[in-house]
């Protein structure tokens, strides 16, 4: 294995009974990069991360984390990793700081408390709050603090901005960029394409337990899917728009209003739409599942 790889998996297999969660996952994450792990629900993102930390055992294939076997050297691997679970559950009998101190003790007290306090301040988080009183978003912040506090070489984050308001999401992305600048590797899963676009150096797309491809985040943008509700001032024919490449007419409400779906580059569509007497345009981003479905339907059709 190359020394500049933080994570390598080769043919990783994981079954839950009859369900095949990972079907030969091949993954390479370079040291010092931010790697976004994208995939619809049930694609195998959480399973991959939990295999890397030896929380679950693969049925086949192999994995190396920071050059170590996560099963045989699990303690050493976990000492150098920070982990944020996708379904974060915290023991509620502590205050936030009490819980961090307990988890710190499990790390052998190798935590930079000045750094933790600085991060807490940036996240506008009060460490004296009892865990049981924390909102979902604040629990997520606490989860991030425990993952980051010991300045790990590798961060494994399962949906790191889940439950946070847009301002805090922005703050977290900033922190992760800073962590990367300090030399850490960030491996994160996300459902939000724009988040991966803005944060990741590379994005891996997982589907049905296999890595389908690794792309530059800018490519995600060109493949993204949008829905637009177009309202016109007077009667128009929407068929001409639907004939543009990547454009689909989903619903015609009446002769002035329609719902269209645009895949990929928006420019031809915008140029064509400019010739219409548009009174209003509402856009919406379909779910990641829908984006993937559209993308892979096209790929399979080729």
């Amino acid at each position, binding site marked *: 294995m190359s020394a500049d790889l933080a994570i390598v998996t080769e043919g990783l297999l994981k079954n839950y009974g009859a369900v095949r969660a990972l079907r030969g996952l091949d993954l390479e994450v370079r040291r010092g990069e931010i790697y976004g792990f994208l995939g619809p629900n049930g694609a195998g993102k959480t399973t991959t991360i939990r295999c890397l930390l030896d929380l679950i055992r693969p049925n086949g294939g192999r994995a190396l984390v920071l050059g170590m076997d996560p099963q045989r050297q699990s303690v050493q691997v976990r000492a150098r990793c920070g982990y944020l679970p996708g*379904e974060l559950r915290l023991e509620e009998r502590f205050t936030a700081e009490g819980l961090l101190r307990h988890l710190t003790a499990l790390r052998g007290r190798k935590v930079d408390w000045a750094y933790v306090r600085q991060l807490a301040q940036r996240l506008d988080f009060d460490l004296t709050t009892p865990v049981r009183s924390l909102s979902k978003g604040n629990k997520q912040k606490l989860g991030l603090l425990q993952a980051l506090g010991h300045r790990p070489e590798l961060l494994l984050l399962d949906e790191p901005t889940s439950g946070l308001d847009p301002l805090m999401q922005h703050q977290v992305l900033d922190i992760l960029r800073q962590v990367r600048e300090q030399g850490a590797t960030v491996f994160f899963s996300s459902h939000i394409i724009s988040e991966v676009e803005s944060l990741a150096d590379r994005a891996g797309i997982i589907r049905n337990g296999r890595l389908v491809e690794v792309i530059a985040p800018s490519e995600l943008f060109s493949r993204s899917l949008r829905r637009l509700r177009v309202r016109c001032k007077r009667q128009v024919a929407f068929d001409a728009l639907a004939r543009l490449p990547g454009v689909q007419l989903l619903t015609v409400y009446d002769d002035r209003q329609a719902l269209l779906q645009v895949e990929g580059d928006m420019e031809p569509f915008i140029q064509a739409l400019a010739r219409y007497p548009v009174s209003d345009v509402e856009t919406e981003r379909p779910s990641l599942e829908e984006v993937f479905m559209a993308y892979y339907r096209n790929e399979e059709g080729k």
Partner: protein
Amino acid sequence: MKLATVFLHFARRSWGAIVGWGVMLAVLGLYLMRFYDTLAEQRAMLEQLVAQYPPALMAFFGGTAEMFTAGGYLSLEFFSYMPIVIGVYAVLLGSGMLVSDEENGTLDLVLAHPISRTLLFAGRLLGAVAILAAILLLTWAGFVIGAQGTTLGVTPLQMLRPFVALFALLFLFAALSFFLSMMLPSRNMAATVGALLLFVSYFVNSLAQIDEKLRPWGKYLPLHYYQSGHALEGLKGEWLAILLGVGVAFALLGWLLFLRRDIRLGGEGSWKLRKAKGGKP
């Protein structure tokens, strides 16, 4: 250091149970010890009364004509039924040693820290042992204080013996329940099966005292090796070793299963759920 952290965390979490069970049983012990002399004063009358009871009933509750000896009295009034009372707590403690955290989802984060599964198991097992020992020591203290100035004539060290026997039995059931929690799909199921085995063992063993046909089966049950209050006269090392040995064997089997286990996420609690949903890919 990390072992101490795991041990103290688990033991502290059960602080309420230690105080609750320990103080409640200590008060009961204090009362029973103070009551002994009153009972002894009315011995003649009580012996007449007891003579009218069916012998089988007395045998079932572990009492005999010896109920006025220290060992007989302690057995009848306390140690004969304690395996059921505090045994249920031991079953809950053992079944929840690791799986309750797994089911509420907090084990995932704990095991993402640099501690081995063996260390976590060892710290929790030591914690469970300490919790049971602390409850029994508090109870013992109640008995010792209560016995002061009575005609029972039992030294603190002698008084400790039946508690040692009870501890060995409780340890066995806690370890058995831990093993079951590693085998069965949920903590509730492990606790139910553990408690069922405890009750069956208790009743079959008790009935074996009065039913010849059941007697051969008795020796296969843990309660057969429990000395109850009669341990006052001296502990049977072999019986103690059997209880502790089987307990250790169950704990080790549970540990082996824990080493190979996929840590479930919170909410994944049964075979049915895992089959239907396939865990959380």
